[in-house]
């Protein structure tokens, strides 16, 4: 079953053509990676899927329903959650409040989800009364993922979750991403880190200058193709 289907997607920033005819499919309960260098259009793609940006043409289907152009708060109610680049933790809300806000549209399962997230990231329970901006980078990333999970999403989009974090922390976070996926949540990862992305994902897309230049299951991609798709040379 397809969780997400993107077809012929074009996105502009005023006159700048950022995404060119993007086609992409995400199978339900899988992990897919969208890989590319800085400025390849990865975040633009995730932000468009999540409803922060509107496409100029093309469409996006979420479990068979058209969702392109819907506002992001509408996406959350349908089961699509984004962990944004830079985490965007609410600095003047406590860790607990940041998590609770994640369940804004799904209040009945708040306590159940909260205890799941505290099990996934026990450090968040210890820090629950601290303000969001007092956490370390790794803890903030855990909080951003936990907050996105509070809405009970079917699909979670993660934008550069390893950015600026120590390798050991990244390893831990990726282990939890696998765990989240094992519980039945589809994961879309956007990354610059090729090795880790390919190791985690069931299927990968490479973006270069706003276009999909390579795709396939990681095991089917050879090093030369990957280098060319990433660097463009």
């Amino acid at each position, binding site marked *: 079953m397809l969780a997400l289907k993107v077809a012929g997607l074009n996105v502009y920033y005023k006159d700048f053509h950022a995404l060119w005819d993007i086609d992409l499919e995400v199978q339900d309960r899988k992990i897919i990676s969208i890989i590319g260098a800085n400025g390849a259009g990865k975040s633009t793609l995730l932000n468009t899927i999540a409803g*922060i940006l509107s496409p100029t043409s093309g469409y996006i289907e979420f479990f068979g329903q058209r969702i392109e152009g819907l506002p992001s708060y509408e996406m959350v109610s349908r089961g699509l959650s984004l962990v944004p680049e830079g985490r965007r*933790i609410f600095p003047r809300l406590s860790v607990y409040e940041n998590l609770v806000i994640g369940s804004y*549209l799904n209040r009945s399962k708040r306590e159940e989800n909260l205890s799941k997230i505290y099990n996934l990231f026990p450090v968040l329970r210890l820090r629950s009364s601290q303000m969001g901006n007092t956490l370390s980078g790794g803890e903030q990333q855990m909080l951003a993922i936990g907050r996105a999970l509070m809405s009970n999403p079917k699909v979670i989009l993660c934008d550069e979750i390893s950015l600026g974090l120590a390798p050991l922390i990244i390893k831990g976070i990726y282990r939890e991403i696998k765990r989240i996926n094992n519980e039945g949540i589809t994961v879309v990862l956007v990354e610059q880190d090729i090795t880790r992305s390919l190791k985690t994902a069931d299927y990968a897309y490479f973006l270069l200058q706003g276009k999909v230049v390579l795709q396939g299951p990681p095991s089917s991609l050879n090093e030369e193709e990957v280098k060319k798709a990433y660097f463009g040379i």
Partner: protein
Amino acid sequence: MEDILQPTLNGILLGGLYAIIAIGLSTIMGIVKVMNFSHGDLMILSSYLSLVFMTRLGVSPYITFFIVIPLMYFIGYYFQRFLLNRILGKEMDPPLIVTFGIAIILQNLLLLIFTPDARTLMTGLGLKTIFLTEYLKIPMNYLVDFLIGLGVIFFLYLFFQKSYLGRAIRAAADDEIAAKLMGINAHDIYAKAMGIAMITAGIAGILVGMTFTFYPHTGSQYLFVAFGVAIIAGLGSMRGTFIAGVILAIAQLYGGHFLGPGYQMVSGHIILLIVLLIRPKGIFGTV
């Protein structure tokens, strides 16, 4: 010593009223990032609404709280939803011009409907005082203003800290895009925040009407009070707003008491200037 006690006591009590006059303006400045120049006039609108219900229904001003408060919520909600939300986030100027325009329209509408005559919401409290000593007395209407002001600020604090809507409003104030990613419709939240700000303005308007006389143009006078308190307190602190209300009221009453009535406003301005010079983000400001 006795000379200073009465203006100090009056200042503390009046500070509660000043805080509730300011809290709506300061909340909207902190959350929607809009300076609502029509805050004072919307407040005086509620004084007139109370007057209308009082005379038409023959009820006491206290009963009119129950009619005016919901009415003010809806006025605030739709004012934000259909007017201010459409011009948010573009530049600083359009919301200023719109709220300033609303202030002028409201003043002239009130003038047209109610004439420039002075009005008041009679409660009988204005005549009552509690004598603490021979020289020191508590005016009952000031005491009621203070207690209601304190209660409203405390309730508002609980609302913002403990309720889903309060947290969502704070989240949207922190980061609008992140709030949308949590399923929060930020523009709807802003409208609700303005509705809540107008509830406080509504309460303030009725209290002002019960304590002082008011005219169609009195709104701008209270806009100064609201701005003054917001500047002294800074944004983001309810407790700070309350204390700043007391500081401004005491400054004004000291000026009036020791230098003469003409110096009442001037002494308030001097305190504002001092705070702006020493701590531009306000004494308790976190933003």
